[in-house]
């Protein structure tokens, strides 16, 4: 299978989504910045969306996967809005958005 | 892409059958047609628009305007282009070079990509994508990050303020714009621009019930409002006066493009003009019947016209409508004062969004109540007792 066909197969889609997911995990774990964590989460959500769409096309040839992907996009939008509002609030409180500083409830 | 009927490209493929160009695949023709549209239409328009704008401004201020280069100064824009290309490629030393470079490109890409789905004539459309209107809305959103990143990369507080204003303005006004497009989609039941335009024709020979419903702007009382909201929202989205706060000269020097010069500035300017054109073309297509000549079906004229002539007339009609709207935009620039930031946001969230929502609701009820018939159809149906339109 050449590279072009691989790109247009479910394996290709799944590889992209896996890499996207792992990079998202990587970003989530390594960023100090809360916004950076959010970026990682967006990558993870996109990876999930790609999976759904890929299976929707290659395996069911039906709409259900796309519907779920649509809902993922909408939920991601809501999540981003709320998360950024929280980050702004936190910034106003602590003058920083370092995720490690959000530890009032530790121990 | 893969599923769009690229009519332009298809036509090109058909023409080249049997010639030495036959092996060229469809997708190449699709790209070629897209490039043709951009280079032959978008970019010249961007240039000519600067000339027109200056001329109109001069007329309104009782000046002469550009008159040195070429007859009536017509080649002024070419001279400007040459000037811009030959200027120093300056990047602010403290600025972010990478972002500074890609930001204007984003703006131009965002505005030019919208051209692809605009139907110039009945069969003249680069890619009549089936999510047409939505596609235009989607690609034009690229403009906002372009402006925001460019302003940030300039390392200049005027720029940054202008960029933040611009992004906030664009994001906010996208809502009434989208909501004002919804009535049209409700009426036509399609996102495809070509289909929407096709439905706005008017054939005097057909009985009312079977006829198309003329221009969407007079489809029902709500679409009249929706048209104006879309127009005003388009002004705001393209940062035109009276919503040109991002580049308010009196406050922010020149706003987000303060630090830009040369071709990068030219790209910003081009992007803005193309965006204006796309907005007006969209308005014309969605609400003013696009290439439809009012009350005439050219296909069923009393003399049979050559198809090429019909296509040309269609393009002409469409361009006339669009350019009239562009003229109004420029006219407004010298007529209205600039709004304050709070006025701007208040107008959007307190005025236009509720009104646009009301329009959507009203149109939905109208479509439900009159089974999709327009005001004209309803009225004529009343007068002729439901018979034919004669």
């Amino acid at each position: 299978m050449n590279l072009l066909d691989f790109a247009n197969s479910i394996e290709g889609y799944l590889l992209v989504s896996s890499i996207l997911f792992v990079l998202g995990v990587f970003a989530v774990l390594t960023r100090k910045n809360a916004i950076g964590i959010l970026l990682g989460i967006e990558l993870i959500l996109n990876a999930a969306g790609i999976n759904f769409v890929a299976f929707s096309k290659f395996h069911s040839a039906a709409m259900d996967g796309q519907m779920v992907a649509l809902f993922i996009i909408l939920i991601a939008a809501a999540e981003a809005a709320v998360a950024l509002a929280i980050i702004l609030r936190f910034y106003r409180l602590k003058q920083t958005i370092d995720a490690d500083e959000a530890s009032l409830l530790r121990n | 892409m893969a599923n769009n009927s690229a009519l332009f490209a298809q036509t090109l493929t058909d023409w080249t059958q049997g010639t030495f160009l036959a092996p060229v695949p469809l997708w190449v023709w699709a790209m070629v047609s897209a490039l043709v549209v951009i280079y032959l239409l978008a970019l010249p328009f961007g240039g000519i628009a600067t000339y027109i704008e200056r001329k109109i401004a001069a007329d309104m201020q009782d000046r002469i305007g550009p008159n040195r280069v070429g007859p009536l100064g017509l080649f002024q824009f070419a001279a400007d282009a040459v000037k811009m290309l030959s200027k120093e490629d300056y990047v602010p030393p403290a600025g972010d070079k990478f972002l500074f470079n890609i930001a204007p490109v984003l703006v131009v890409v965002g505005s030019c990509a919208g051209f692809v789905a605009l139907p110039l004539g009945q069969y003249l459309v680069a890619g009549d994508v089936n999510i047409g209107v939505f596609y235009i809305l989607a690609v034009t959103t690229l403009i906002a990050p372009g402006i925001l990143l460019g302003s940030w990369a300039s390392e200049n507080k005027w720029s940054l303020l202008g960029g933040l204003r611009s992004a906030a303005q664009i994001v906010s006004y996208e809502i009434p714009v989208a909501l004002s497009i919804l009535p049209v989609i409700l009426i036509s039941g399609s996102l495809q621009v070509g289909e929407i335009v096709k439905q706005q024709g008017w054939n005097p020979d057909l009985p009312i019930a079977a006829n198309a419903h003329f221009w969407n702007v007079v489809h029902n009382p709500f679409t009249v409002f929706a048209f104006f909201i879309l127009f005003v929202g388009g002004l705001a989205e393209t940062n035109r006066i009276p919503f040109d706060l991002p580049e308010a000269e009196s406050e922010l020097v020149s706003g987000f493009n303060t630090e830009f010069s040369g071709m990068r500035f030219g790209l910003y300017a081009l992007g803005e003009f193309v965006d204006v054109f796309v907005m007006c073309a969209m308005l014309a297509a969605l609400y003013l019947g696009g290439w439809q000549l009012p009350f005439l079906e050219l296909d069923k004229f009393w003399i049979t016209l050559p198809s090429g002539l019909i296509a040309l007339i269609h393009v002409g009609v469409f361009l006339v409508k669009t350019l009239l709207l562009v003229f109004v935009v420029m006219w407004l620039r010298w007529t209205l004062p600039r709004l304050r930031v709070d006025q701007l946001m208040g107008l959007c969230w307190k005025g236009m969004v509720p009104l646009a929502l009301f329009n959507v609701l009203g149109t939905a009820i109208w479509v439900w109540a009159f089974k999709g018939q327009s005001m004209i159809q309803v009225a004529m149906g009343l007068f002729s007792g439901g018979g034919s339109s004669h």
Partner: protein
Amino acid sequence: MSNGIKLILLLAEILTVGSALVVAVNPNILYSAVFLLFSFLGVAVMFLFAGADFLAATQVVVYVGGVTILILFAIMLTQWMYRLKLRDVGSKFIVPAVVLALGLVPMLHRGLTDLARMVKAAPPEKMSEFAASPKTMEIGKALLGSHVLPFEAITILLLGALVGAVWLARPKS
């Protein structure tokens, strides 16, 4: 489908993955955000090739026009405005992150492809027909038909998110 078209898809996938790589490792948060935008665009193209035209446009509108701008705003509002070096010093979880990354990619991909093999693939003609058919109307019907409950739930979620975000971000009286 011609190879040229497939090439576009391949390029989009490379764009997606490459941009995501920059998002993950670039220390400059603003660059991460910008490349996240490119990654989104790549994903949108992938959607388009998977027959999800409406979804692709939604992806662009929501992510590029909404989420990215919000993120850029948040970055610009929370960083010192003119501190351009938005260095994000690598945290102490770099080692587990790398280990996880290296371990998860093959496992995930293998698991997912196994899954894909277990599930019966759609017949090719049906697949291409599906990929070429417009989806807007079907999505509209599904939203008000079979998927009306999640749709309504999402509307309530979005309203709640809207109100909550405004409440959280409002200035102190």
